[in-house]
């Protein structure tokens, strides 16, 4: 699934999901890995209220020279989504030929739980219509590894097959950003993610 080189200088990645899913850690690892590879990189994230189970989005941009830490709509090369509705919420950031990597996970928001809104039944189809979408069973892989929290690194493993960044940089970035006692587990999760990407 490796992607052909693009003409434009910067690569734009949106990582989104639900507050508490480890999205910020995922973006830290990506950001650090790209810096090891010698790219200029910027990352923008949101702290505070949104982290209490709200919708969360992080922007990561890398290339020769990055000015804005924010990605403009319609220019994201990749969207890495930890939840389907969240993928849909930010799908308008996707570039025409961009690709979405979506965890096969549905987390109903409170508005759905209390019956004020519906979880879109045809969400897979709608996502596919908005851009090239890969549905990945990352949560079950993480559960398989015995810790559902590493779903973020499983998904990064998938993403790593799309980005042209040496595997070594990814591993170094994981080592740098996760607590020592979880390094092995996360490296394993990353490997499983790479396998998932086929």
């Amino acid at each position, binding site marked *: 699934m490796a992607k052909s080189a693009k003409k434009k200088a910067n690569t734009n990645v949106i990582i989104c999901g639900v507050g508490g899913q480890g999205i910020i850690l995922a973006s830290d690892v990506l950001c650090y890995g790209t810096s090891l590879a010698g790219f200029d*990189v*910027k990352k*923008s994230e949101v702290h505070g209220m949104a982290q*209490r*189970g*709200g919708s969360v989005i992080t922007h990561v941009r890398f290339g020769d020279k990055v000015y*804005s830490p924010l990605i403009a709509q319609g220019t994201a090369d990749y969207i890495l989504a930890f939840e389907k509705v969240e993928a849909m919420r930010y799908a308008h950031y996707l570039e025409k030929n961009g690709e979405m990597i979506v965890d096969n996970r549905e987390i109903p928001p*409170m*508005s759905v739980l209390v019956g004020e809104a519906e979880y879109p039944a045809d969400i897979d189809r709608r996502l596919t219509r908005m851009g090239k979408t890969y549905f990945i069973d990352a949560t079950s892989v993480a559960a398989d590894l015995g810790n559902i929290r590493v779903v973020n690194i499983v998904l990064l493993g998938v993403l790593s097959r799309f980005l042209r960044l040496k595997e070594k940089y990814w591993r170094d970035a994981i080592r740098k950003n996760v607590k020592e006692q979880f390094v092995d587990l996360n490296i394993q999760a990353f490997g499983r993610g790479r396998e998932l990407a086929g």
Partner: protein
Amino acid sequence: MKSLLSGNEAVARGAWEAGCRVATAYPGTPSTEILENIIKYPEIDAEWSVNEKVALEVAAGASFAGARALVAMKHVGLNVAADPFFTMGYSGVTGGLVIVSADDPGMWSSQNEQDNRHYGRHAKVPILEPSDSNEARIFTKLAFDISEKFDTPVLLRLTTRICHSTCLTELGERKDIEVKGYVKDIKKRLVLPAHARALHLVVEERLKKIAAHSEVFRYNRIAWGKKTLGIITSGVAYQYAKEVFPDASVLKLSLTHPIPERMIRRFAKQVRKIVIVEEGDPVMETEIKAMGIKVTGKDKIPLCGELTPDVLKSSFSKKTKAPAKSSKVPPRPPVLCPGCPHRGVFYVVNKLKLVVTGDIGCYTLGALPPLSAMDTCVCMGASVTNAQGMEKALGKEFSKRLVAVLGDSTFFHSGITGLVNAVYNKGNLNLLILDNFTTAMTGHQPHPGTGRLARGERGRRIAPEDIARGCGVEMVKVVNPNDLAATESAFEQALEYDGVAVLVFRRPCALLVKPRPPYRIDPESCNGCRLCLRIGCPAISLVFPKEREKPLAVVDEALCVGCGLCVQLCQRNAIFLSRKSDG
């Protein structure tokens, strides 16, 4: 060597490199990580102060004694600290004094969108505005230098996208700057009318000197591009302007108050058209217009909300239509965590249909459905005082249906004065203090009620109930909010009580304790009555299996932390501990 630092980490690093000795802050998004990172530098005496006014005054005291000092807060924190801020403009500094204000355009985690560049102007204090992390680090150091050179506090103004964006940043070494020591100088520091009259003249003179410095300040600079369009910009807006108008000439201002008039005129003469790209209010625009220069600014670029490359682009082009957003995506506002100790209190409030004056913290989320248990939220501490005012307007009977709710950290921040006021003025206040042993919303900072200091070392614990008793409150109770029956009966007693009543609901934040085994719902017993949904726990949802006539409540075991609150609601005993029964 370059490192990846967020703007907040970079400010901390800059303070360390500048030889800063004392740092203070009250947590508030997006500023919190500044002090959290300063804590990592042992050379700096760092404290979480009880509020921003206190923080600024402590830092000012350190400056009086000749130490370099920094104080960090979110934009609304400067409202709290405004009193010393204005007067420090008069008395000036001995050790450099830097005040960091982190504004929140877009209100990601705030109650208003105030633009604190007005504050620098209002208090006649110079303002530095970095546009990325590396500048945040450099400008923090320059802020100390400017502070000492011109004998003034300096406002370092950040915004959410500076604080929480990460980029490659150079690192420098620490300059060892001696504490100058204290020399008595009452004409400068004892700001009574006779002295202040003289000081005001000094302040105006000083502003002229800084304005002259602004003309030669090396980070106020012009990058020439095409002369058909000239952009004047500052802060993160600079990055967006570079992205959207890559060919334009750009005057990037960094020392943005006082503005460099001559430099601006020089720039204006050489470009055909000027656009001011600034986020928030037309601050630079107003000043540049007053110079008689014709510019475009807020007539095109929105004043409200966050500025983004998209917003900037669409302000100037009719053609670029934004890609269609997906319709019908259910909203996902933040919620109280599974097992949050606040949930039980709000459930009871909702059940008793009380009027609630609210406050600022995680518990503000209790306002959202299904708990819907809050009527007002103004600013830190206002729950207490708003309630007293409502009672004054509507009488004692009304106060029997009225409670004020605030968290432990907020109580220490600015709830205590309101409590004293209510006792003194014979109010009938019912005050609920939600004591979860932390400042949760900003990421779990300690406060006086935790008995821990900034670096985790043991301090003296001050309990809210002791304060209440010390203020003369006789009806004080400490209650476990996860015990719904006890919570409800405490409410009844407080509401009936004549005079001020204080209930302290004590249970640690769910994120601070190890999760207990999850609960499960027995599909045989559950009749889909939805009672358990009333507490709004994100771990419980209602499903509609095809083979069943009635809906079924289910617990997501990955989310449930086993707090047991829902168990108390189910009339059919359908909710049980999964692990125990699994054996």
